């Protein structure tokens, strides 16, 4: 009896549905639709609060000799160009989010480093405030410096991106965007400090203040940046080398800058219509005292042919205050070893194998450094009278 009552409505439902076959189909379609939308809503709720992204690069470079451009010599290892990063974006409220990025680099034995850790807040649609650890916005690609996948090149042009090894700071910034008719102006002001151990030095920036302004019509982008800080630079690599020769350096010998005023200026433009991509930046960094003042520039052009984007890039960098470095660190080590001058010519291609993965091939020819091989393997350059080097790179970049 009980069973009958339970079964009856079911049978009724079935017979009612069966009576009009078409409405049955419709009902199924409707249910399917409801199910889909419920599923989507579930997904969107899940996706909204926390999002994970990341990027990965690996590659191999080899140079024609041991001049050491970007640290690449005749025998390099794959680990040097490998990195893996994970980024989490957590929506705190509708207007606030927390962002954290962990980067593990092959040349740092994959020790994860927090590259980004900041809270951002949008009080209005046009204003964004951020506080925490962020990238120093020296260059157009600073924000995505290590995201090889988002860049056209195998590596950012070293003439401009190479000399400054400090890449992040702790502080706060405010970004204001003015939307015009099919164009936008973005101004950013930032302040903070930085302590960083890089491959060749430890640097400290204190009372860092800077600003960027950029305009774009989504085809052309023009950008300007100015930064001032008090810089302290300790040449750890120089000290290590001296120590390896058993030389005890007097205190202060490897201090290249000691709370000295440092300024940075840059202008850049880019053009991207989906087919052609042209990018150029010109930068100047000035540091009081014996540390280098460097002018740099590059221009690159690429064209997309389906999944292939071949490019050409030329770059130049030169220290502007060589006449100030007349002294010596040690009797046989003149200050002039910091003098730098070189020209870089790159030809390469990006190949988008599948969305999210790109392979890049690059040949970079570097020359003109024989009189001022700063930042290169100086002993080798001088002893072997080398005046050029070729660096061959094969790289795989991915973003997910």
């Amino acid at each position: 009896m009980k069973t009958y009552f339970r079964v009856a409505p079911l049978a009724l439902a079935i017979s009612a549905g069966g009576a009009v076959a078409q409405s049955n189909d419709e009902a199924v379609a409707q249910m399917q639709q409801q199910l889909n939308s419920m599923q989507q809503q579930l997904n969107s709720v899940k996706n909204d609060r926390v999002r994970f992204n990341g990027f990965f690069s690996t590659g191999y470079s080899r140079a024609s000799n041991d001049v050491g451009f970007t640290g690449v010599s005749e025998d390099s290892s794959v680990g040097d160009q490998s990195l893996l990063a994970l980024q989490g974006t957590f929506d705190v409220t509708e207007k606030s989010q927390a962002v954290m990025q962990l980067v593990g680099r092959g040349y740092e034995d994959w020790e994860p480093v927090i590259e980004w850790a900041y809270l951002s807040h949008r009080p209005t649609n046009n204003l964004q405030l951020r506080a925490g650890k962020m990238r120093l916005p020296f260059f157009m690609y600073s924000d995505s410096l290590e995201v090889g996948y988002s860049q056209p090149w195998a590596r950012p042009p070293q003439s401009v991106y190479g000399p400054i090894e400090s890449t992040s700071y702790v502080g706060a910034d405010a970004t204001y965007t003015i939307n015009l008719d099919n164009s936008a102006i973005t101004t950013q002001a930032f302040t903070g400090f930085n302590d960083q151990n890089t491959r060749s030095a430890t640097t400290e920036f204190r009372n860092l203040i800077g600003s960027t302004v950029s305009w774009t019509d989504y085809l052309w982008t023009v950008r300007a940046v100015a930064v001032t800080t008090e810089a302290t630079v300790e040449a750890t690599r120089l000290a290590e080398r001296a120590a390896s020769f058993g030389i005890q350096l007097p205190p202060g010998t490897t201090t290249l800058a000691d709370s000295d005023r440092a300024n940075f200026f840059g202008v850049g433009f880019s053009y991207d219509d989906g087919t052609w991509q042209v990018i150029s930046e010109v930068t100047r960094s000035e540091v009081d005292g014996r540390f280098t003042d460097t002018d740099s520039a590059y221009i690159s052009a690429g064209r997309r042919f389906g999944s292939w984007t071949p490019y050409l890039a030329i770059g130049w960098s030169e220290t502007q205050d060589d006449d100030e470095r007349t002294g010596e660190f040690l009797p046989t080590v003149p200050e002039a070893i910091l003098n730098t001058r070189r020209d870089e010519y790159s030809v390469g291609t990006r190949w988008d194998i599948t969305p999210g993965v790109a392979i890049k091939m690059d040949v970079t020819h570097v020359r003109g450094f024989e009189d001022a091989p700063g930042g290169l393997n100086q002993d080798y350059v001088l002893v072997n009278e080398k005046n050029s080097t070729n660096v061959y790179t094969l790289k795989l970049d991915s973003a997910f």
Partner: protein
Amino acid sequence: MKTRRTSLTVVLAALCLFVGGARAELVIIGHHGGPDTITPQQVKDIYLNRSSRLPDGQRVVAFQLPAGNSMRDEFNELITERNDAWLKSFWSRQVLTGKGHPPREVSSANSMKSVVSSTLGSIGYLDSTLVDDSVKVLLTPEP
């Protein structure tokens, strides 16, 4: 004779209309609570992270079909004017610099329709032959 020609014309016109209506055409769709129309430029701005609002001021939630879908290719050709590789690289930069997230990807045309019909402030695109009353057609982009 005159009447006959007229009726022939009508039939032809109707035929044309019918054929035109049945052709898989890209349409931009939205939630019923959203604006009635949108321009191609406004759609492009939303899908290229230049705008986060619909023309009526609502916060927008944009959806896209998966890679390989013919309507997605059509949308890229007519609206964003960028190919998938460009868009992937562009969005990776936006995401990893904290500037925004790409339009949410739905698995099929059916789920596109259901998610647009059930999400306030939604915008999406679909093959015109699959559109029904659950969503509003905001724009039919001209090739």
